[in-house]
């Protein structure tokens, strides 16, 4: 077999894999939607209308499209952060905490004299990434030096970050009036400019797209990325090959932390807020786990999954607002999607039916022989 046909074959193989994976994800989404429809049938007085809202509302107005795309940008970043640690087979759950410390750092910069200059935006983003990286580094180094389980330590750090943000907003950061749980609005120079006026689509979308390319490049075009993936596939092998797997683990968690910090700045410096408040992220950070799992931790698949998932998420919120169906229904839908994708289900195809038919056909045949 010549090399050209081999290359052709491996390319075709890759396309086949992509098609199969995409088919699986879509199949999962369809099945989950079907189940959602059944639930809506039981919980709503006007089920068709409610379901219609779920499926079409995000597209209905420029404002809702803006909400959707803004969510997609944020889901992409958290999905990338989780993909990075998952590829190194680390289970750091720290994106949420990194978002809060990142947001804090961005807020301090924005509300400082620097915030009022042109440097307010870039320095805010940079400091947020730095803070997030530090927050991601802690569970990594604790694992390497003291054997601390990264799941536990990163989850604990999430609480610390949330409460730290809570505390500083109440006590330390400047507020428009005593007693409110928000800071002063950031100066305009520290806030992301909108890309489409009148919507929430802002500079964050560009950051998300750049991050997708950067993570993809880092994972598949640099030696650090190859080492990271080798460590993720088999840490014993990496050690045997002379790769310092502990350094790779820590650096993967730190890099993911920087992405978490970036997400924090996208929240508070973005068009959505433009100020810091308590509990601002609404559990979006954790939904990156779902995005990463469905995308199989592939950076280029993350934004695609985020696009679909963000749509569903936005539809659910609008359904909650506009109809009598609680948004918890969508919790059920996302749970079903995760279950179907994570359990590597395959569409019940020929084999499945063949087996059922084979069994029932073979049984009488056996009887006949006796």
């Amino acid at each position, binding site marked *: 077999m010549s090399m050209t046909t081999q290359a052709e074959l491996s390319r075709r193989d*890759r396309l086949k894999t992509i098609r199969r994976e995409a088919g699986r994800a879509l199949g999962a989404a369809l099945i989950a939607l079907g189940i959602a429809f059944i639930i809506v049938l039981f919980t709503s007085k006007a089920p068709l209308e409610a379901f219609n809202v779920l499926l079409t509302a995000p597209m209905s107005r420029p404002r809702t499209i803006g909400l959707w795309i803004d969510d997609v940008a944020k889901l992409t970043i958290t999905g990338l952060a989780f993909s990075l640690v998952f590829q190194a087979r680390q289970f750091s759950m720290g994106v949420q905490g990194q978002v809060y410390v990142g947001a804090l750092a961005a807020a301090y910069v924005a509300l400082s004299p620097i915030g009022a200059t042109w440097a307010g935006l870039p320095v805010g983003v940079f400091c947020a990434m730095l803070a997030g990286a530090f927050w991601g580094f802690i569970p990594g180094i604790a694992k390497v030096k003291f054997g601390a389980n990264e799941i536990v330590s990163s989850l604990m750090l999430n609480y610390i970050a949330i409460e730290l943000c809570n505390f500083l907003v109440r006590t330390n950061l400047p507020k428009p009036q005593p007693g409110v749980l928000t800071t002063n609005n950031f100066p305009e120079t520290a806030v992301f400019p909108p890309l489409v006026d009148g919507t929430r689509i802002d500079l964050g979308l560009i950051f998300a797209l750049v991050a997708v390319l950067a993570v993809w490049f880092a994972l598949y075009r640099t030696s650090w990325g190859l080492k990271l993936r080798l460590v993720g596939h088999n840490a014993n092998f990496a050690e045997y090959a002379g790769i310092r797997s502990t350094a790779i683990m820590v650096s993967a968690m730190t890099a993911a932390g920087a992405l978490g910090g970036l997400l924090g700045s996208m929240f508070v410096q973005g068009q959505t807020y433009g100020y810091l408040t308590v509990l601002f992220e609404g559990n979006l950070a954790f939904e990156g786990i779902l995005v990463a799992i469905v995308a199989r931790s592939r950076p280029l698949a993350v934004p695609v999954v985020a696009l679909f998932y963000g749509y569903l998420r936005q539809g659910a919120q609008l359904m909650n607002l506009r109809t009598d169906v609680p948004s918890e229904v969508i919790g059920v839908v996302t749970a079903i999607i995760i279950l179907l994708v994570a359990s590597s289900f395959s569409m019940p195809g020929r084999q499945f039916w063949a087996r059922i038919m084979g069994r029932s056909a073979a049984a009488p045949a056996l009887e006949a022989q006796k």
Partner: protein
Amino acid sequence: MSALLEAIGIGKTYPGGVVANDGVNLSVNAGEVHAVVGENGAGKSTLMKILFGIEHADRGELRLDGKVVSFANPREAINSGIGMVFQHFSLVPSFSVYENVVLGSEPHAGIRFDRQKAIAAVRALSEKFRLSVDPLPPVGQLPVGQQQRVEILKALYRDARILILDEPTAVLAPQEVEELFVAVRALVEQGRTVIFIAHKLPEVLEISDRITVMRGGKTVGQVAARDVTEQSLATMMVGREVALRVDRASNDGAMACEIKALKVKSESGALLVDDLNLRVHAGEIVGLVGVEGNGQSELLEAIAGLRPIADGVAYLDGTSLSPLSVLERRARGLASIPEDRIARGLASGSSVAENLVATRLDDPRYVRNGLLDLKAIKANAEKLIERFSIRVGGPGAAVSTLSGGNMQKVVVARELSEQPRLLLVNQPTRGVDLGATQFIWKSLTQARDAGAAVLLSSADLSELLALSDRLVVFYRGRIVAAFLNSDTLTPETLGTYMLGIASQTPEEMQGGLR
């Protein structure tokens, strides 16, 4: 005489299009030992899984006592009197021997598990079939050979008339193999039938009455053991002439590696390698003989840098290795083929190309300024795939899609892609088919002839005897005997030292230690 168990025209294609069996015929007579031989991937295991009801044939039929049968699952096969002992045992380590044997069909007294009856039953069975095992200790404490007997007893307890043994000798020391054969003969005397899967030909010829040879999913033929030789059988299996011998080193070079008073400890502090002295010269293969767990693997790991050296020194070309990292050792010409390719030697989810450069990620040919040179990595992979005839779709294919022999070739290709000074080899051909074994042996001797000093550990004595120029025997972390290899050296001689029954005096060892 009509056959007890027959498989006629069996065909099996796995999802994904791998044709495992394509018109396989097998005919086993009652009361015989019937060997099924073939390379890895020849379809032996698939055929056995079909006989035992784990897989289902797409075509063909099975006949038991002349009647057509079809097993939906192993339970139906067991009920028809077929038992199977897998290469990887399915025992509960914390349960006692008798509990493991009766598990699933325990004798009852009322609703209570009748332990005394179970123990008595197991004793009776082990006496009848000369499979001596104490029924009381937990299985996890027993050596592998005994665990295997427990597996056989399990099948016999369920009244197996036909016993399928899947590569039973792969895990055994020579003496244990002898004991297994005694039991197999006892089984046949009592009227049981044994199907014996193997690819070590001398054993097959010794124990079996008739042999079915498989190649590429087809049966090549059925022969009587007394009518064939090792060589003719090998030719049938591979489909071409096979050289089972390799040439010895013709010259010996300068000393490459010197190990002085080396000690290696386990995490719990137990001495695994104790005060070891050994010299290896360029251009020779030194075989490390010993039952697994006597320090050979640990010695190799310590030299490779995967385990700390507790005391003593290992020199490579005069440089002490202890302070050096794995990469620094590799830069000085150390290469190593590890014991377990899947656990240690490969990242099976990664591509072949990535695996082939994994040890050279600081080499400017493949990585510059932290960026991968994908073209060079791919070219390297294509070159090595060709040179080591690795059967793979392309450099981008995941290693996990390869067969065992080809996976091992990827490891060998990576480690020998540049001529090493010191080559550490552990179980180079475990679970690898004859064709690949022959290729790997040739690669190792080529590396030796080009000036590598080779330390070789293997559980397969015939491999050690075929490849080594010198042999040292390990027992409990120490060298107890040393030999220059010659045709007069037999596995039995080595066996007495391996099991600690005998040891040489320092003077006797001198000749083999150099």
